[in-house]
């Protein structure tokens, strides 16, 4: 990687300097042919450079896919994510095909028809048939994509809530997240920023009977294979709840409840042990080790080794610490989830505790 980088830089700088020196020589005023209009020689040179450029572009694109293609996220960890990825790969395949063909034609024509004295251009102003063809082809292809896309879109966005659906509120604030589970009644208690007070940081309405069993947590745990309906609420500015591994995202808007639903299909454990992730994490830890060496040499603390966890991040500019607004997500088996959620304190319990504390401190 570094080698590639150095080569690119040196090559570019070399070309620049070489050209510069040549040019400074040429740009001296009073030189022979200095109309500053391209002559046959320029046409020839630039024509070859056009051909060279399309070769560069191809190599660069191939290199990018080869070296960075695996940056693409691991297999989707949600049910709809599979459709998402399929549509994505079809689209990428399609646009890369068009890209390869059109860029070739563009630069190849630029090379092939580079001007020369005596060459006659073809006066070719119109051709209805051709134009019809290249209007209708995009129409058909795009129609296909639109239809496919829209079916997927309505599948993803139309939420069907049933008995089994787990309702979770994701609450955003500068600069963090909270999750609120609806408890045994599977119904979230009413909430509004006007109720924020003391430990009631997400503004739950105490008088709402559905609120008592709500549980507010700092980690997001989800049972695998069970549909989850997220309700998003923000206390201050716009945020965006971005779940890249689940191919899900929804803005979080103050004054409004937005929603998104998906079914996690791969537990954190499974994802951690997947071939892709094992390799990726190894690589990451390699990088971190290298960097730690530097850090330690400078008297800083070394970086911790990394272990994969799903995360939720903020993807809408929301202030100074926008770049560090994250929440850990754990996808686990139903029974693990149940025992975790049982350990969490409910809003009712928090209130009671506070009451007791007040009483004891009054004494």
């Amino acid at each position: 990687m570094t080698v590639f980088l150095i080569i690119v830089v040196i090559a570019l700088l070399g070309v620049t300097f070489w050209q510069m020196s040549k040019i400074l020589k040429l740009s001296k005023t009073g030189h022979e042919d200095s109309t500053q209009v391209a002559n046959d020689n320029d046409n020839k040179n630039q024509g070859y450079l056009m051909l060279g450029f399309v070769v560069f572009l191809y190599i660069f694109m191939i290199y990018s896919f080869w070296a960075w293609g695996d940056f693409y996220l691991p297999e989707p960890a949600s049910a709809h994510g599979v459709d998402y990825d399929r549509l994505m790969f079809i689209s990428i395949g399609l646009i890369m095909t068009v890209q390869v063909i059109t860029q070739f034609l563009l630069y190849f024509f630029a090379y092939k028809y580079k001007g020369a004295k005596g060459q006659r251009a073809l006066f070719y102003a119109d051709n209805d048939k051709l134009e019809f063809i290249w209007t209708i082809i995009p129409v058909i292809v795009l129609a296909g994509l639109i239809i496919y896309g829209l079916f997927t879109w309505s599948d993803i966005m139309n939420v069907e809530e049933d008995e089994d659906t787990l309702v979770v509120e994701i609450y955003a604030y500068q600069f963090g997240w909270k999750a609120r589970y609806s408890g045994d009644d599977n119904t979230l208690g009413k909430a509004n920023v006007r109720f924020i007070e003391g430990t009631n940081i997400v503004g739950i309405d105490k008088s709402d009977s559905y609120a008592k069993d709500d549980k507010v947590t700092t980690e997001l745990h989800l049972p695998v294979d069970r549909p989850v309906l997220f309700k998003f609420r923000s206390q201050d500015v716009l945020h965006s709840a971005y779940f890249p591994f689940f191919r899900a995202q929804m803005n979080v808007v103050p004054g409004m409840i937005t929603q998104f639903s998906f079914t996690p299909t791969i537990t954190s454990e499974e994802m951690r042990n997947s071939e892709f992730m094992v390799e990726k994490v190894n690589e990451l830890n390699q990088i971190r080790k290298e960097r730690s060496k530097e850090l330690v040499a400078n008297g800083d603390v070394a970086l911790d080794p990394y272990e994969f966890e799903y995360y939720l991040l903020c993807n809408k500019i929301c202030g100074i610490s926008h770049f560090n607004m994250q929440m850990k997500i754990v996808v686990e088996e139903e029974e693990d989830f149940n025992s975790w959620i049982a350990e969490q304190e409910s809003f009712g319990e928090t209130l009671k505790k506070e009451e007791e504390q007040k009483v004891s401190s009054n004494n």
Partner: protein
Amino acid sequence: MSATANATVAQDHHGHDDHGHHHKETFITKYIFSQDHKMIGKQFLITGLVMGTIGILMSILFRIQLAWPEEASWVFELFLGDKYATDGVMNPDAYLALVTIHGTIMVFFVLTAGLSGTFSNLLIPLQIGARDMASGFMNMLSYWIFFLSSVIMLSSLFVESGPASAGWTIYPPLSALPEAIPGSGTGMTLWLVSMALFIAQSLMGSLNYIVTVINLRTEGMSMTRLPLTIWALFVTAIIGVVSFPVLLSAALMLIMDRSFGTSFFLSDIYIKGEVLAHQGGSPVLFEHLFWFLGHPEVYIVLLPALGITSEVIATNSRKPIFGYRAMVASILAIAFLSTIVWGHHMFVSGMNPFLGSVFTFTTLLIAIPSAVKSFNYITTLWKGNLQMNPGMLFSIGLVSTFITGGLTGIILGDSTLDINVHDTYFVIAHFHLVMGISALYGLFAGVYHWFPKMFGRMLNKNLGYVHFWVTAVGAYGVFFPMHFIGMAGLPRRYYTNTNFPYFDDLADVNVIITIFAIITALVQLVFIYNFIHSIFFGKKATQNPWNATTLEWTTPVEHIHGNWPGKIPSVYRWSYDYSKLNKDETDYVIAGQDFIPQNVPLQKNEEELNH
């Protein structure tokens, strides 16, 4: 026909031969408060280039931070000072401020005013055969308001609490509440004032362009004989008039929310331990209003560049532009569709999913005229006699980046696929290629092509070649890799990615991008040098250096007020009679000359074609 009637009136007014000198011009009226469209065009260009230099410098600063996160650098100390770069390390608020002002400057000040302002002013009167704009005074006013707006935008960099830093999209509540981010204090106020002035100047300019194109065309210049540059600039002006007022109203409402306690965009907000009184507003409303301008803005930036490209490619291919009518039709289709696609920026904003479907549909529709344009450019090159002048290279480059960037639009315009790449670096890659770099190439193509018309001298072509090739490699080097880090789920507007170990392997790519960016930015100095040097010492231009057909090349090299010393030329043909053969196909219509200027009457040996 009122168009011809008006043209005659204008002609009569200036009809006498000595008109250029009938009132003495002082330095001030000639160079500063000039009402001459050619001078105003140059003023727009130079102001735009100055702003562009600042905008690009800003991008280099934040790219350095992204490549070497939180490392101290003398560069930061030099440009940001201790306040924004404590101990030489860029602060997060400085990062957001730089990104915001970079975006604002590049989109509005460089590529709206600098591009369309320059070339509308320069080309509309010259190419349609008019003595000047319909209202020279309003035109002058438009430039000076633009200048004032630029000064205010730049002055916001120096206020105590820092410039606006809520992103160039200034979504409230972040942009409305100084408690949410320091830049939303005085800095944001100045941003809004500056943009309100900017919109005012844009409207004045646009109305002037529209009226001029409709009323002041010379005899014979029917709409279907207009060069595509004029079509593009004309339609751009119309889009501007339709959409900029909406941004103005959004800005006004935002000002009221900020200062007068209204609640257009604010509701249920708890910040710094307090609940705000605002109730009932919606940030989503602001998003709708913003993007009702914001998306057409993309085409306000792009259409002039495409128009310039049409002209430059045809001239340098020595061929008519392929499918003139289809080109005009696509400009019109793009203009119409561009006003009904704004929702594709809001697929995951919380807007009704059904609306998302509608906007996906309209968005993918707009790909069709765009595709037609690209194919037509490529066909124009086919069997041409390509003159590789620097303007031509930039035009070819534009078609290339327009395709690359346009294709990823198919992914982003698909509501489903947008879910996971929305607001990531994939978006940054997409819009920089399709709008930023393409429009910038259009600007450069225009400058190289019309420099002789503006300054009476030629730009050095060899410096132009270096400028193009390094920029071409650099631009792909900067923006192509960004697709991949975007696909990895890397959000934009992040000060650093180090808080997510998962992104650690993207660090190398970020270094590569930054190095390409620095090289690309440096090579722009070659252009600046060429530009300044050539104004004073460039080779003297001939009247029609590129052997072009359009009317601006029938004016004398020395600028005169009123453009043509004698009568305004009449027009007898469209602007693309390049390499047209005579009836027997033995030679060009004018023997030995492969172009027929628009003011040459139909020849006996030529067939009349209906384009």
